[in-house]
């Protein structure tokens, strides 16, 4: 797939910029305030994208509207209710029409499909009569959903700040069959559930896939040899190999932020400790020692520290250590047990699973263990993963019995609980970074 990357995206200069005389591009006030008790999603008008193929223009606009709605930060208005039904990206809108319709935020887009897909979008602040952002993209003709996601990210970033997270994928464990003999295989999809592909055939159990930072490599737990072992899988080639030959069992892998190292658990004689090894081989380094279960390691985004879970003090709790191992400090102190700590890509928070009072909770805390907040609670939920902007967490929820798990997401303010559509039961989600 060839794709003009977001780094190559062009900021649109407006043809006929004189129309903007008297307005300012830089003073646009329109903004979603994402925090606070009085949060309200921002109403936004997104007419169908202009296109020689109107159905295609509607399809792209639908994907954008769906992304923004699912973020919980935006409220896309019913396209049929808008004063203009099809966007016009080449001219300055008649702001009075939109103000009269109580539209503050307006997205005008166009898309054409030929040898490539070319798409342009402008976000307008109708009150300020100012362009918030203007961008155009050219993509591979088979990447129409991606161009819609890239545009969604541009809109999100211009109005909500930070980075977007729509042009991303999720790798997960697809589950089918009765619980006592369930088939578990790896699957990958776009963050909105589209474009599902199965990566393993289910003849051997595969669990806990995790992306490398560039999204092309995956580490996961493969039961092909009996006990689970960590495997490295390259998505672009399908090639895979065992990561390391150490201990009786290797599991719970995760990449370092530079992609050059995998940190994982090694079990030997009932004791489970944390090791690291280079992705190109070498001798694994032992980072923890003792008879306890040390697992679930996750690097800080700067690579200097590792957060992990350990039952060395009795029940499983969260600990922090340097990336070279040693001198681990406990950071979780609440009732019950804590597991699956995962560091936010922004570095400011750690997500975790907490079991307490017969319930499972998905929560977040500061890296020093303070500021703990629960975002979701149910009979069973576990395994958080972060969207690349550090604002949304995906996890899996299981109703128990012979039913199976499903993927859900919630934002770090505890709002906007969503179920991610999958065609089978699904667990162990891992969110990719923004695709380059």
């Amino acid at each position: 797939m060839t794709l003009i990357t977001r780094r190559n995206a062009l900021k649109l200069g407006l043809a006929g910029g004189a129309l903007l005389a008297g307005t300012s591009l830089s003073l646009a006030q329109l903004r979603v305030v994402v925090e606070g008790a009085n949060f309200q999603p921002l109403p936004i008008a997104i007419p169908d994208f202009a296109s020689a193929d109107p159905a295609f223009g509607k399809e792209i606009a639908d994907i954008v509207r769906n992304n923004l709605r699912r973020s919980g930060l935006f409220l896309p208005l019913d396209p049929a209710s808008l004063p203009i039904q099809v966007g016009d990206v080449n001219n300055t809108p008649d702001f009075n029409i939109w103000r009269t319709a109580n539209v503050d935020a307006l997205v005008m887009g166009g898309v054409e499909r030929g040898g490539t897909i070319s798409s342009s979008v402008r976000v307008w602040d109708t009150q300020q009569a100012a362009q918030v952002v203007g961008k155009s993209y050219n993509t591979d003709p088979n990447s129409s959903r991606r161009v819609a996601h890239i545009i969604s990210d541009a809109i999100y970033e211009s109005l909500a700040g930070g980075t977007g997270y729509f042009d991303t994928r999720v790798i997960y464990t697809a589950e089918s069959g009765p619980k006592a003999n369930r088939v578990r295989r790896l699957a990958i999809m776009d963050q909105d559930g589209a474009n599902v592909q199965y990566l393993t055939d289910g003849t051997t159990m595969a669990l806990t896939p995790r992306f490398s930072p560039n999204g092309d490599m995956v580490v996961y737990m493969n039961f092909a040899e009996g006990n689970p072992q960590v495997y490295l899988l390259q998505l672009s080639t399908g090639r895979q190999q065992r990561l390391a030959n150490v201990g009786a069992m290797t599991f719970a892998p995760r990449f370092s932020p530079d992609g050059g190292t995998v940190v994982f658990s090694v079990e030997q004689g009932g004791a489970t400790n944390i090791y690291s090894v280079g992705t190109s081989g070498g001798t694994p380094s032992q980072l923890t020692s003792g008879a306890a279960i040390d697992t679930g390691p996750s690097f800080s985004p700067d690579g200097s520290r590792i957060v992990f879970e350990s039952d060395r003090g009795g029940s499983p709790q969260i600990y922090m250590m340097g990336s070279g191992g040693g001198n681990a400090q406990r950071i979780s102190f609440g009732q019950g047990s804590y597991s699956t700590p995962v560091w936010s890509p922004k570095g400011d928070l750690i997500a975790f699973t907490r079991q307490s009072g017969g319930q499972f909770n998905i929560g977040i805390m500061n890296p020093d263990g303070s500021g703990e907040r629960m975002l979701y609670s149910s009979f069973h939920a576990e395994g958080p993963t972060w969207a690349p902007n550090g604002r949304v967490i995906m996890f899996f929820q299981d109703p128990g019995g012979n039913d199976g798990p499903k993927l859900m997401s919630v934002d770090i303010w505890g709002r906007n609980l969503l179920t991610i559509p999958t065609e089978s039961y699904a667990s162990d989600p891992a969110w990719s970074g923004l695709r380059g």
Partner: protein
Amino acid sequence: MVITAPFNTALRAAAMLLFVVVIAACSRTPNAMPTGVGNLGPGGGAPGSQQEFLVSVGDRVFFETDSSSLTSEAMATLDKQAAWLNQYQNYRIMVEGHADERGTREYNIALGARRGSVVVNYLVSKGVNSQRITTQSFGKERPVAICNDISCWSQNRRAVTVVQ
């Protein structure tokens, strides 16, 4: 003792059969069990047979929540396993460690391994040659009892000695 031992054995066999029935009633998929006592017929099996091991000795021990300590009942079962294995040296065994579903996936993989290891160490301490033993952890991925209550979870927190 000479009189009561066979009686106890018979009682235990009956208890095991009852246990299977309970599982079948609890699980919606009684035929899909990959491991364990799914294929028991009546009777204790011929001396030295795998059937005898399943029915008269007992192939599994159970653990308390989040524990890998052997209960006195578990030790009694493992004593019988060790005696049987020491008598019938032609078998190899695979010790499977399992956890219930009330834990996270990766931790339970480790917990299953720890339970398996505790059983192996006990059997070896009772004279079973470690060269005959392999282990595998299934974590919480292969429950035998499927329902949302403590009676099921307690059956899934187990280590199973599979005679091969």
